[in-house]
């Protein structure tokens, strides 16, 4: 009887010790963003600050409580960005009034040319629910790092340049958790069900 109790207590103690160490580890790394080197961080752990097309300051916390669709691009982009924006406009229309519950944002990787006014003028051609974010280069870099996005300026002849950038569309649940990515060349039929999942 006593032996059994000792074993149970001993086991309980060992489990408790392991749980304590795990908890301590989690507590000590709570401020380290490197949760996953490939997948975007939860929005609730991001720390960027940008400006929307109306000149309003936006932080990730402002999006809390709403599912989010976010993607990176720039308005000088002739092919990928208007195609993505057309796709998203189509998806939002297919979703109907449900899409009003989403925050949908284009984040510029070209803040030198994409001022809030330029973004506003550009986005006027697409679904009005899509907002645009731009800002200081260090804040764009921070957002890109937190979304695990890469972008790069590519010079062209005559002083012009274009941007290479991650083309996927990122989906987040209302509580800020990362949900999924819609790849640029993904079959359109899979996009709307993915968005419906973050709307649930």
């Amino acid at each position: 009887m006593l032996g059994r109790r000792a074993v149970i207590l001993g086991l309980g103690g060992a489990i408790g010790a392991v749980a304590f160490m795990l908890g301590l580890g989690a507590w000590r790394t709570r401020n380290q963003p490197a949760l996953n080197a490939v997948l975007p961080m939860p929005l609730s752990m991001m720390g960027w600050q940008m400006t929307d097309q109306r000149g309003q300051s936006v932080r990730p916390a402002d999006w809390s409580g709403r599912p989010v669709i976010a993607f990176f691009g720039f308005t000088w982009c002739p092919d990928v960005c208007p195609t993505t924006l057309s796709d998203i406009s189509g998806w939002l229309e297919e979703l109907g009034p449900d899409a009003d519950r989403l925050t949908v944002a284009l984040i510029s990787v070209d803040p030198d040319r994409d001022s809030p006014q330029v973004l506003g003028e550009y986005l006027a051609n697409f679904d009005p629910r899509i907002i645009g974010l731009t800002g200081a280069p260090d804040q764009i870099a921070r957002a890109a790092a937190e979304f695990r996005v890469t972008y790069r300026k590519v010079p062209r002849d005559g002083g012009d340049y274009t941007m290479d950038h991650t083309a996927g569309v990122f989906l987040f649940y209302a509580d800020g958790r990362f949900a999924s990515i819609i790849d640029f060349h993904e079959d359109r039929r899979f996009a709307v069900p993915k968005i419906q999942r973050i709307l649930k």
Partner: protein
Amino acid sequence: MKPLIMPFALILAATTAQACETVTLGDLTIEHAWSKATIGADRPAVFYVEISNRGATDDALVGISTPAAGMPMLHETVVKDGVASMPHSMTIPVPAGQAVQLAPGGYHGMLMGLSAALKAGDRFPMTLTFEKAGKVTVNVDVLPLRAEGPDCLDAGQ
């Protein structure tokens, strides 16, 4: 509803029917030449088209030129590891018995140095140069920035 739908259908037909012209050059058929409206003349425009080769000889699109832009180039959107880039394409193959599409997300003409902003409903000529078949000029119809392509009855998309 009917009185509302009818004028809308007519407008749609009037604005989209244009890019449905078909031009032939030897064994090549060139159709659905379209572009997207631009905001101002500083941003590059795009050029999309479908080329089919009914012949037995491979050909290739090696250049484009237009009075609408000072520096038109052939590009290909390539997505590698999720990152999109647009390398310059020296030539776009048009193999015998096959069709090639310059379409959103793939091969496209990039029109830099626009002489004027492109507005939906505009039309401009584009001369395509093929390695073997030579040159042909087609009319390019400018569709809204949001357009995904011309709506042609015969469109094979």
